[in-house]
């Protein structure tokens, strides 16, 4: 991975974090918010592989943890694993169909929400269960799926400009 690509990843994640906390956090359609950071992490994993996915996931999750009030490391753990998983899933495809990223993002968003709910329940942070959990599970996945095509297009466009992994 080139330094250029690293800069792109870092900047994208920072942008996503800022947008997430400044803009998207104020939006709550029907009581749920999209998770742009997650979408960006998964898109990078799908585009660059498991190593980048888990690294980006860990870093982004750590910052989310630092900015939030929940137990530190929780999102770092979840996003790290999710980024890695997305990268591994990518390795099974030769070419990605248009809807594949959407499916992957949808599934992994659900996993993230469930993992977050389970872990925070274990740690006694917040009890997310019942109707709010189901709502957030369904709606956040849906919103993330909607965001995916744009984010994925941006991520792949940035990659072709910085460097080509196949050439590396």
């Amino acid at each position, binding site marked *: 991975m080139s330094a250029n690509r690293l800069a792109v990843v870092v900047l994208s994640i920072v942008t996503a*974090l*800022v*947008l997430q*906390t*400044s*803009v998207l956090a*104020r*939006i*709550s*359609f*029907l*009581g749920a918010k999209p998770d742009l950071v997650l979408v960006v992490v998964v898109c990078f994993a799908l585009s*660059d*592989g*498991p*190593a980048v996915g*888990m*690294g980006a996931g*860990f870093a982004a*999750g*750590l*910052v989310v*943890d*630092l*900015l939030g009030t929940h*137990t*530190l*490391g*929780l999102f*770092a*753990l979840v996003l*790290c*694993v999710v980024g*890695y998983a997305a*990268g*591994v899933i*990518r*390795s099974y495809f030769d070419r990605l169909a248009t809807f594949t990223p959407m499916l992957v993002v949808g599934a992994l968003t659900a996993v993230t929400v469930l993992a977050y709910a389970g872990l925070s329940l274990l*740690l006694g942070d917040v009890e997310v269960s019942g109707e709010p959990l189901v709502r957030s599970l369904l709606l956040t996945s849906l919103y993330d799926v909607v965001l995916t095509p744009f984010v994925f297009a941006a991520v792949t466009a940035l990659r072709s400009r910085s460097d080509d*992994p*196949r050439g*590396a």
Partner: protein
Amino acid sequence: MYRDSRRTRIVLALLILTSFTLITIDYRAGEGTALRGLRTAAAAVFGPVQRAVTSGVRPIGNALATLGDLGGLNDEVHSLRAENQELRNQLHQVDDLRRENDALRKLNGLTARGGYKTVRCRVVALGPGNFEWTATVDCGSRDGISKDQTVVNGDGLVGKVVEVAPFTSLVLLAIDPQFTVIGRLAVHGTTGPVTGNGLRPMEMQLLAPTALVSIGEAIVSNGVQGGIVSGVPIGVVTKVSTARSVVTRTVEVRPFVDFTALDTVAVVVEPPRRDPRNAVLVTATPTPTPSATPSQPACLASPSPGASGASGASGAPGGTPSPGASPCPSATPTPTPGRTFGTPRPTPTP
């Protein structure tokens, strides 16, 4: 690059381990650790950026937030609408209460002036027929009601009790054709039976064809033992028939009571110890209803000189209504020719 290499897995394990370490440290230490400093640092770095972005995109953010809050706004609209309806209902209730208060006040005044002992009831149903004018009230024998007792409201005579059940009673309304009460012309003192006539004005038969009567003159009940109690305002004379019957003279009477809007009534369970004569009329008379005849229904305080002479002491013995209640413009009214009917001047009506 897409390969899941061994090195990647080691890094993954390390990252997961780090995460668990962080979670453990944060979970066990809580506040006041080095991690706290990390959070502060992150906030210090991101805070200004967030603030700048937020202020930059605030209009967009607000618009999006509004969009996102549509569900919430909908809820708010619903709750506000419900609240609005609730307030409107309350307003109507207040109006209703005010009207009821007025009615009760009038009723209190009437029963107090008459010295009637009454039981207050509410009309719960009106007679179903087109030719039968009855009302069911929500008090019965358990409340001390018995048959033939007089029913009044704040305006005057409503009717009499014809059937009594434990908890309800049936009232024959004064406008029922079967209803008859002995009335007395408040000014001239002549008595005669007043009969209901449905929606048409009540009719009073003056037994003497030569009896004096003025349009606008009030009629009060002239009690008989076991019947309607004395002194209850019945109505005002609106028309005197010109058909000169040999035996009687018929007078049209507009009742004081609005029989289309009966609500709270009072059943007189004990007649007054003294006959109230015209005392009940004092404020019961001014019930201006849109009538074609420009009558002066409350001009009782000043009967025409000729009339008082003819009717003698029976007319208004000291019980002349207070001037305040009388809409008469002056203390000496104009006994206009044609307004007083009687033998001395049997003027034909226009």
